[in-house]
Structure formats: structure tokens, C-alpha cells
């Protein structure tokens, strides 16, 4: 055991309650200088609260923290930053209406000769920072809202790194990044300077690649700090979940390729989508794999009725269909339901209960005499809650009070309850913990086995290979490659994602020449 005095950061017996709710209780955590330390735990285990305490957003009720031996009690973000502790937040703390330069300089702009904030000085300083982090292609004058989600995440990371002289906290830094080498390189550089990194991620592969030790949180307590080399995935999962998790790949029977098509798309274009044709059959789970910004978002939004295609045709259950809006999509053929990418902005209705969220699209169906009865609502919600493994007691809670994983389960339950036979799932397990992932996978498989069709996009390749019957790789707005059966394995996918794999027949070569984002 190392003494706290030598540690970059030592957290001892920190606790925090919100009203009657205990978020953290007796959490211990020690980071050594130059170490990348993983913080693991399910959603709701208290990771975010700990991050907020470290960043000075929230003050703990009890416990002590020391930074390089001296007491550390940050009271604001700036306070903690001035001590060399900086955080890249999961919910991105960038201001969409300000420029890249302003965001990077926030909250204090560099001054010009007049003593006033100078746009040119900010631009210069920002460009210099961007260059150092290998992001010179981002224009410092661009407003952040014009950047892709991945670039915003990069910016968030860069900003934290700029201020982290002692401790860098990265909360789900790869949620929107499809390639991680850039980040890993930066982390190696910064740890070489002696900065400690607290790395929070649900992707165990990443964690193993980066970190030597990990601290596991469960129900607001720190369960253990383990040497990752000496712990198997199963061990870690068990610590996180408190029970053993089975994680073998279920053998999938080969799909009947003659099953009727539930969704057929031809020549679809719009936004970044150039020309996409494919068929999704009943009982099939079809994955879309792509790097950030290859048109997958447009594809899903068009199919969900949220955006209009510029060209192309959509057949649903054999009938040509024009999708005007989501309610139209729900009614088209046997129904298309969508689980959106951004839970917070497009998913949950924060002031409603979980049950209210789940039953919203079918509120008309479950009403009696024009009125919604809470009993009927609860019954309807409970009927699907089980199939996504959502505990029934959560149904009456405001959904905003649930963890991200349970929110995601509720959203999936909502699509199931609509009775739609085609599901569009955009990154359904983003920011979701291991246990929840398994529940979601199981729900998706059950749905497909019962004859439903699923089109999903995922930023995690293991998810694609585990779950999908077939996978299309989108590149430059087109379907660049397609894999199924034996071919569906990570190595091949990785190549195709960046456009470097052996080009399948009939694909124009030039697509491979364009560089990824």
C-alpha cells in the first residue's frame, strides 16, 4: 500500500447524499503520478458523483481528499482546475453557440493590447492548442454546433488535458469516438509527464489496454482496487454487478434468407447518405458499422421519419412508403420504432415517470373512456418492463431519477410496447453498463427470434459481432462492405471501417481514397 503523501490524488472515505438518497459512501481511491487508473462500475454506482466531487461541482458530505499530499477541497470547477485537476465530462461541457476558440479558452479569454478579450489572441492560442493535439484540421473560428459529435468529444478531451497538470479525469471519453488511437497516444504523453489519469469507461478492452489498476464502485461504495493484469473479465464483472455475469456468445441459427422483407431500401440518399440499398428481413438483426459521420445518423433518421430523403425508395413490408414523421413510421406496415442516439435530447421525457415514458406512444390504446388510468398504465408498462429486465419498482419513478442504463431499458421497452415489428436502434448500449448491456442484448435477440426485425448501429465492434446476423459497413455515405456468418468478425470489420479492406466486388475504388474524419 502506498502512502497518500506520494499519491497524486488520494480520496478517503468520501460520502455524499442527496436528500435521503446516498450516492457515495466511504469511497477510497488512490491515483499514483503517471498512472492511468480505471474507475469501473455500473450506471448508478456513483461514478458520476465522484467525478463531480473531484471537479468541484459537488461538495462531499464527508471524507477527505488530498492532492500530492495537501488537502484538496475544490469548491468550483475553476478551483479544482487551478489545482491541476481537470475533467472531460461525459455529457460534454461545450457551448454549441460559441466558437472552438472560445470554448477552449472558457471561462477566461486571452486579452489583447486593449485589455479586452481579443478574438485573434484566442484564435491563435486555440489553434496552437489544436495543433499540439493533432487537431489542426479543426478551425478555431468554427462554432461548436457545426462540429461532429466526435470532434466535440475530442475538444472536450483537449480542453481537460490543457488544464490537467496533476490529475486528468476522463468520463466515458470514447463514447462518441470510433477510433481511440488518438486519445491513447495523448494519454501516454500526458502520463509520461507524471499526470495521473482517472479513466472511466464501460469498454473493458480499452480499460485493459490503457490501465494497470482499476477501482470498482458498486452502490456508492468502493468495492476494491484491483490489478487488472491479475483479474479476469468475469472477476471484474462480478465485482461490479455483485453476481456472476454470463457472457458467452449465444449460437445464432442461420437466418432463413427467404423470409419476407420487412424493410427494403433502394438508392436512399440524404444528408451525408449518398446511395444506400439493402433489405432487412423478418427475424433478422442487421448491424450498421461505421466510423463517425459516415451517414449512419442520416440513415436512421430517415427511416425513423425524422428526416426526408433526397432520393431513393423505401418499401415497408413490401409496400412503397413515404415516411413523413415518426408517427407515420410507427403506422407504416407492421410499424417501425426508433431508439434515438441521444438519450437526453431525443429520448427521455424527464418530467414524466418511467411508466409514462414507456406508454406515451400507445397512450391512446391503453386509455379507458378517454382517460389514462395509472393502473392500466402501470400494467401496460409492466408487460414490457420484464422483457427488458427493468425492475417494476422503477416504473413509478420520474425517469430523470433513473440511471442511464435503466433509462435506456425504458426506451427500449417503449419501442417494444408500440408493437412495431421493425426496430431501429442507434447505439442502444452507449454509456450503458455491462449488466444492462446483457439485458438489452437478450431483449433484442428475443425480439428477433419472435419474428421482429432489428436494424442497429453500434460504435462497439464486439457488440456488432455478438449480436448481428449480418453487418453492413457504411463508408462515405455508401455501403462499403457487408459481412455475415463466418466473415463477421472484428478484424475484418476494422479494415472495412476505414475503407482499407479488400474492396468487395462492384464497389468503386475511389471510395477508399477519401479519408475518414
Amino acid at each position, binding site marked *: 500500500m502506498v502512502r497518500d503523501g506520494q499519491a497524486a490524488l488520494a480520496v478517503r472515505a468520501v460520502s455524499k447524499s442527496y436528500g435521503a438518497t446516498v450516492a457515495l459512501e466511504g469511497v477510497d481511491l488512490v491515483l499514483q503520478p503517471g498512472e492511468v487508473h480505471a474507475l469501473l462500475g455500473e450506471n448508478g454506482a456513483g461514478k458520476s458523483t465522484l467525478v463531480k466531487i473531484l471537479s468541484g461541482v459537488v461538495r462531499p458530505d464527508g471524507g477527505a481528499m488530498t492532492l500530492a499530499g495537501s488537502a484538496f477541497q475544490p469548491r468550483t470547477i475553476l478551483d479544482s482546475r487551478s489545482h491541476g485537476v481537470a475533467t472531460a465530462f461525459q455529457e460534454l461541457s461545450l457551448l454549441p453557440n460559441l466558437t472552438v476558440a472560445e470554448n477552449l479558452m472558457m471561462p477566461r479569454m486571452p486579452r489583447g493590447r486593449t485589455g479586452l478579450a481579443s478574438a485573434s489572441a484566442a484564435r491563435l492560442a486555440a489553434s496552437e492548442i489544436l495543433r499540439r493535439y493533432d487537431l489542426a484540421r479543426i478551425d478555431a473560428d468554427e462554432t461548436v454546433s457545426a462540429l461532429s459529435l466526435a470532434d466535440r468529444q475530442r475538444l472536450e478531451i483537449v480542453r481537460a488535458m490543457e488544464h490537467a497538470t496533476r490529475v486528468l479525469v476522463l468520463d466515458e471519453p470514447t463514447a462518441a469516438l470510433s477510433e481511440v488511437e488518438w486519445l491513447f497516444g495523448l494519454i501516454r504523453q500526458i502520463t509520461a509527464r507524471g499526470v495521473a489519469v482517472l479513466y472511466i469507461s464501460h469498454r473493458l478492452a480499452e480499460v485493459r489496454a490503457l490501465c494497470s489498476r482499476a477501482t470498482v464502485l458498486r452502490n456508492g461504495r468502493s468495492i476494491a482496487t484491483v490489478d487488472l493484469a491479475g483479474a479476469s473479465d468475469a472477476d471484474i464483472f462480478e465485482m461490479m454487478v455483485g453476481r456472476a455475469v454470463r457472457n458467452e456468445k449465444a449460437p445464432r441459427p442461420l437466418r432463413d434468407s427467404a423470409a419476407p422483407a420487412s424493410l427494403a431500401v433502394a438508392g436512399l440518399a440524404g444528408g451525408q447518405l449518398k446511395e444506400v440499398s439493402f433489405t432487412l428481413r423478418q427475424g433478422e438483426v442487421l448491424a450498421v458499422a461505421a466510423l463517425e459521420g459516415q451517414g449512419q445518423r442520416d440513415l436512421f433518421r430517415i427511416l*425513423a421519419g425524422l428526416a426526408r430523403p433526397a432520393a431513393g425508395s423505401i418499401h415497408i413490408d413490401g409496400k412503397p412508403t413515404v415516411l413523413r414523421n*415518426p408517427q407515420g413510421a410507427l403506422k407504416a406496415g407492421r410499424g417501425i420504432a426508433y431508439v434515438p442516439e441521444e438519450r*437526453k435530447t431525443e429520448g427521455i*421525457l424527464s418530467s414524466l415517470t418511467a411508466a409514462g415514458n414507456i406508454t*406515451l*406512444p400507445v397512450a391512446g390504446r391503453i386509455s379507458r373512456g378517454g*382517460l389514462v388510468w395509472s393502473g392500466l398504465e402501470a400494467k401496460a408498462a409492466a408487460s414490457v418492463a420484464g422483457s427488458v429486465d427493468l425492475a417494476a419498482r422503477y416504473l413509478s419513478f420520474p425517469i430523470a431519477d433513473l440511471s442511464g442504463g435503466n433509462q435506456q431499458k425504458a426506451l427500449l421497452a417503449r419501442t417494444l410496447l408500440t408493437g412495431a415489428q421493425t426496430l431501429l436502434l442507434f447505439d442502444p448500449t452507449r454509456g450503458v453498463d455491462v449488466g444492462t448491456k446483457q439485458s438489452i442484448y437478450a431483449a433484442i435477440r428475443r425480439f428477433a427470434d419472435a419474428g421482429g426485425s432489428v436494424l442497429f448501429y453500434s460504435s462497439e465492434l464486439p457488440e456488432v459481432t455478438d449480436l448481428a446476423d449480418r453487418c453492413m459497413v457504411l463508408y462515405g455515405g455508401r455501403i462499403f462492405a457487408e459481412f455475415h456468418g463466418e466473415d463477421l468478425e472484428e478484424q475484418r470489420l476494422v479494415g472495412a471501417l476505414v475503407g482499407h479492406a479488400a474492396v468487395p466486388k462492384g464497389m468503386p475504388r475511389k471510395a477508399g481514397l477519401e479519408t475518414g474524419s
Partner: protein
Amino acid sequence: MSVSEPKGAAFQASADLRRGGGISRETTNAIIVFGLSILLILGSRFVSPALGSWSQVLTVLMLASFLIVLSFGQGLVILVGGLDLSIPAVITLGGVLATGWAGGGGDWYVLPAILAICGLVGAFNGFGVTVLKIPPFIMTMATSIILASAALGYTSGTPRGASPAAMTALMKTTWVGIPVVVYFVLLFVLAGWLLQSRTVFGRKLYAIGANDQAARVAGVAIGPVTTQAYVVSAICAGFVGMMLVGYANGATLRMGDNYLLPSIAAVVIGGSSILGGRGSFIGTVGGAVLLTTLGTVIAAIGLEQGWRTVIEGGIIVAALFFMREEFFARLRRPKRS
């Protein structure tokens, strides 16, 4: 803008353990406003011994009836994250048409027809807000200006005629010693509460107000539903115009002017979020009753108008203070050793 924050998305304590603790915030709010009203009525005995009586309660309910009906509509619009500034103009429209077309007698179908016309104004608001995407504040303000001008032109400045018989009956008769309008208000409150809290329509309004993009993804037809909220608001305002005509037996073009801010205040004091997605009609009713009670008590104190106004403003701020989230959190939080 490509990413917009959901309304009122606060920092979530992402612990599944956190919970509401039995009573919802809306209920507590409503209890607080009603409690304040009752306290005010009881306390007003100190101002005048005649106050605090049953007849004062009846007077308050009768005078509050206008505000209750109005703020129901305003509340629905606020629930979807909008604001209806056209209320005064629509009140006038309802009043002017009621006296002009149905004054004294008139055919029974005239009153619904007038409400339908008011509904059209609401549809116009809804059209501007949902299709043209004009901010509700501006759209309804423009409607208000247009409508006021049209009413001025239509009447050349003087509304004619008297109250329709039905409205006079509603406002002037009593049944078992209680004004008929009080029964009406009780029924209206029940119906309004059901509509807002228990119907599919109400549910959709909450959804839109909470997060319109998410509601859209969930298959809620944002445009039509939002428009309906404006239509309901306009119909309520038009009906209040007719009630006022029944009450005072005649219309003027400025009869709605003093109702705009109270209609918003009642909703907000009742605990609704001005950003939408939160609130209950019962709370709003409490807000309307509180404001009206305040009016009767203030009318009875012998202070200069200026100071009375100061007190009125102060009480509004105080009511908001008690309605704060933090205040609730403190109420709910059990004492910890």
C-alpha cells in the same frame, strides 16, 4: 443548432435510489398555494371583521372564476413550453361577439359559434408557432395586436348590445344560496384537471413540454397537439369574455387588458414551470384563488394604492419563494443525525 438541451434537464443524480418520497412535487405545490389562500382569508379578519366569512369565500370563488378558466388555457400553452399573450384580445373578441350577435336573446347556436371563432384564433397562433416556427411570445403578441385592431375596426370603437341570456343566467343566478357560477367553476376544475392530468391529450402536452424532440421521436404529433393547446386557450379566453359580458352586462374593447399577467402569474405561482413540462391544474387553480384572495384583502386595507401594489408584488415573490425546489427538498429531507 443541431444539439439542443432538453428543457429543464438538470444535473441528474444518477442513482436509481433517488425517489420522490410519496407525494409528488405538484401535489405539495397545490397544497402550499391553497394553504396560503386559506391563511390569507383567515388572517384577513385582522383587516376587517367581515372578512374570513363564508360570503367572502363565495365572492372570491366567483371573482376567481374568470382567472381559473383563463389560466387553464394559459396553463396548457405554458405546459407545452409556449406562452399565450393573445388572451386579452380573445377575451374582447368573445365579449364583443357575444353582445353583438347574441345580445339579449339570439339563437342558442350562436355562443358555440363564437367559441369556434375564438378557437380559430388559437389555431392561427398554433399555426404560427408550429408551422412558421415563430416564437410563441412574438406570434401571440402579433395575434393580439392584429385582433385588437380588427375588433376596433369591426365595432368602430363601440361594442353594442347586451349580455346573452345564457351568460346572464350563469353569472347572476344562485342555486341553494350559492351562485351558479361557483358550481360551474367546480365542474370546470374537475374537467380541466382530468383533461390535463388524465387524458391522452394531456399526457402528450406534458411530453412535448418536457422534451419536444423526444416526444416527436416517440410518435407524438407535435404540431397538431401544440396547436390544440392554443385552441383550448383561445376558447377559454373567449368563454371568459362571454362570462365577463354576463357579469357586467356589456362589452368594451379593453375588457381583457387586466387579465394577461394574472393568467401567467396564476400558472407560475401554482407551481408550473414556465419552460413547460411541469405543473398541475390544481396548483394553477390555487394560484388563481390566491391572487384573487389577495385582491380582496388588499382592497380592504386602508393604504395608499402605491403601497398596496408594493405588497401585492412582494406577496407574489414570497409565494414563489415557498415554491422553490430547494424549499421542497428541505421539507422532504429527513433529519439526519
